């Protein structure tokens, strides 16, 4: 029963929920100044406050950067958008996970964060609707970890995550579940907003031009599946190029030009 359900989910996966993410690299306030840790961003502490990735110095006379990134001024806040970094899970994130270990009570999943995610079997089956005899557990309700195997690729949602406890995951929901085909590539997590683009413009362009199905997740992993291997290769090259040039201006236009040129070179349409 469960497996058949999975197949239907797989066919309908065409859209990406993450497209609502704003493109923080693109914007009038974002300068193209690369700053490094310890660099003084401003000494005007009356008009500006430290935002993301910045801090006051000891005497509160300067605002300094904590990361290697791009300087951004939003209203009276000074932010630094990081160019390198790691993924920190947040509740509600949809991520691609790899099952690395399982025991009778839980799965352990690698989600590219500092700690492994925990997937409990109760979070892998839909609850509520199919009730068993006299409102008890349904007949097919199986509280053991037989649904997935070690090495499976899952799309999961983070239920809870904080500094102290391991993140808890679920596979119940739209687009979530096991992936049986396609490819997974991984890039630097801070560059994910650039692959999505402002209100999903970049991802839309990639989908239209390469005719591939693509699912971008916040932990730096991208699931993709195309008509044939040539289109998939083209898409992978394009994503790697976006990762490399994430901090430059006018990337979407340049990428569409690049894909058109590559299509002619490689003889695919």
């Amino acid at each position, binding site marked *: 029963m469960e497996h058949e359900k999975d197949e239907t989910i797989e066919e309908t996966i065409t859209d990406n929920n993450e497209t609502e993410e704003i493109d923080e690299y693109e914007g009038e306030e974002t300068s193209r100044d*690369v700053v490094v840790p*310890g660099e003084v961003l401003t000494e005007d502490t009356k008009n500006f406050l430290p935002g993301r990735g910045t801090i006051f110095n000891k005497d509160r006379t300067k605002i300094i950067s*904590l990361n290697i990134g791009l300087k951004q001024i939003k209203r009276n806040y000074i932010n630094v958008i*990081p160019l390198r970094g*790691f993924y920190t899970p947040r509740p509600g994130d949809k991520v691609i996970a790899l099952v690395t270990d399982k025991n009778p009570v839980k799965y352990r999943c690698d989600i590219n964060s500092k*700690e492994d995610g925990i997937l409990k079997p109760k979070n892998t089956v839909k609850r509520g609707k199919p009730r068993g005899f006299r409102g008890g557990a349904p007949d097919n309700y199986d509280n053991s970890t037989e649904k997935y195997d070690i090495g499976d690729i899952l799309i999961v949602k983070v239920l809870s995550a904080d*500094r102290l406890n391991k993140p808890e995951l679920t596979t119940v929901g739209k687009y979530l579940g096991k992936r049986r085909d396609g490819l997974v590539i991984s890039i630097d997590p801070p560059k994910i907003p650039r692959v999505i683009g402002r209100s999903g413009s970049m991802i839309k362009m990639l989908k239209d031009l390469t005719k591939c199905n693509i699912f971008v997740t916040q932990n730096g992993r991208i699931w993709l599946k195309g008509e044939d291997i040539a289109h998939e290769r083209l898409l992978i090259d394009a994503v790697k190029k976006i990762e490399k040039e994430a901090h430059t201006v006018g990337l979407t236009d*340049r990428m569409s030009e690049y894909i058109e040129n590559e299509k002619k070179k490689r003889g695919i349409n």
Partner: protein
Amino acid sequence: MPLIIKDEYPEKLFREDGKRLDGRDKHELRPIKMEVGVLENADGSAYLEWGNNKIYAAVYGPREVHPHHLAKPDRGILRVFYRMSTFSVFERKRPAPGRREKEISMVIKDCLKPVLFLELYPGTSFEVFINVMDADGGTRCACTTVAALALADAGIPMRSLVSAVAMGKIDGELITDLSGIEDKAGEADLPCAMTWFNEEMSLLQFDGSMDLKEFSESLVLAKDALTKIHEIQLETLKKKYIEIQEESKGGENVK
């Protein structure tokens, strides 16, 4: 025929024209070349050539601590592994970590700790692996410099970079940036490191003899040298990204 290197030092460490044995002035640094992002599989990495020193540094983290009993529930830990290759010195170095390597690992760890926000990552570890490929004096300073670069390249939040340099005294005169032979035959050796967010000393070791006046004088001279090294560090980190920016701009102008 085996290469025999005599364990003798020259009597004078200054040449007749007043320069040092390798042709430097008293307060001149050896040529420094830095690079970041050299190792594919590390989270952050850096390579440094400082005179004859050749050093690689790799950073991993934040990640789970193994062995698990080292983990602290209220903060992350920083672990530094300083290792010298067997071929890095004249006489083959035994590969097992010795007393000296453990000490230098500890010194570098304490030197880098104040710039990191370890309290934000409880139960995790940051690991810095430093491998000295070629050694010629002042490796602990060079390793501190390159480790700070690798940490910044990994995208770990830092208050500032850390730069280090060794001051010294040979033939009664103060000098900057000791080379291997000056380190062994000289009168004093004073490695020092600086954190730039508050401009405080993060490492200060002393070996040899020097009077107090000379000591304070060499600290002033050290700051000048450290400023130069810090500038090279900043330039190296930015260069990687600015090059790509200019490439993309250049492409647009041609069209």
